[in-house]
């Protein structure tokens, strides 16, 4: 983990944010900066953590820090795929899973899902998202996959999918804040 970029000072965050949206129009720059900031907050929350602690369930919730990281990376990858293709991987199972009351399985961890591996995958996904945000037509929309939590036949633009990624990342980062504080007392920087 020592090789991971944990960026745990306000200065390093500011350096990253000041370059995130350079040279772009206002909307793209705002999206890139906000995504960068909130990914970094989550990365900070899981930094300097053993894989054992990352898999603990220290609160009343079933969530783990590693599970959150895996899910958030999957959300970002799934919804950027939606922007590109109109398809979210795994969405074909959402209606059945919801009817059966099953928990979403994208929080489940394999042996290979170490914090280092999850953070590396998150870095790759983030880079692909950022490239998309720089170039995509933000008004282009696709029909949402069927799910009990979406209205039938509703559509989301690229902008709405990106707003969803921002909201999901930050909400799960909020879960992670309290789980991390429970694990070892480390408070978030948010």
């Amino acid at each position: 983990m020592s090789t991971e970029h944990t960026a745990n000072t306000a200065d390093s965050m500011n350096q990253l944010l000041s370059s995130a949206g350079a040279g772009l129009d206002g909307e793209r720059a705002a999206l890139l900066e906000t995504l960068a900031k909130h990914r970094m907050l989550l990365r900070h929350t899981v930094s300097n953590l053993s894989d054992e602690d990352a898999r603990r369930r220290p609160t009343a919730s079933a969530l783990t820090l590693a599970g959150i990281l895996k899910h958030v990376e999957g959300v970002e990858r799934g919804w950027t795929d939606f922007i590109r293709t109109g398809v979210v991987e795994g969405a074909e199972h959402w209606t059945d899973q919801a009817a059966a009351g099953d928990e979403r399985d994208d929080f489940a961890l394999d042996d290979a899902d170490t914090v280092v591996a999850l953070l590396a995958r998150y870095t790759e996904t983030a880079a692909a998202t950022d490239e998309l945000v720089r170039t995509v037509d933000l008004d282009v929309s696709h029909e949402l996959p069927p799910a009990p939590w979406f209205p039938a036949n509703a559509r989301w633009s690229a902008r709405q999918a990106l707003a969803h990624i921002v909201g999901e990342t930050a909400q799960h980062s909020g879960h992670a804040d309290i789980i991390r504080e429970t694990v070892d007392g480390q408070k978030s920087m948010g």
Partner: protein
Amino acid sequence: MNATTDPATTGSPAVTGERAELISALDKHRALLLQTAESLTESQARTASTVSALTIASLLKHVADTEEQWFRFAVEGAVAFEGGHGSEVDWNAIAAEDAWADVDWEDTRFVLAEHETLPHLRARVDQVAARTEEVLRTADLDSAHELPAAPWFEPGASWSVRRVAIHMLAEISQHAGHADIVREAIDGAKTMG
């Protein structure tokens, strides 16, 4: 803000595209936060149920205060932060001494007064949301103001109305995440979307 017109007097013309999508995203994530307070007693809402000092009621209060202040900033600039959290601290002097982590000031952002009951806090969240919507319907989304000096902001950076809106989307969502865990520890209710 000469672009500001009151939707009450203009018949609230329908907005589309970016404005509508920012408004609806904020509404959705605010609703996820409010959902964590559903069916709680006042006592439960003030219970710190995890290792964190946060409570459902204090989170509602903080989010409403923060959203109000940020959208005031979006229209009026850094004056919105005067007298607020950390504003009495000379951050430049502290940065020069590289000692900002040692700064201590009384953090009253999450402290509740007696009258701040759940009905009061819900009404407050709704009232702030209505003002946010008014700004997002009418303001120039590119109109920007310089941020106040603080260690958590890039020096000299300006934020547009749009940037404030996306920031608040994340801010509300992060606190909704705190509230999810606090709520589940109170009575087992799972509220995460």
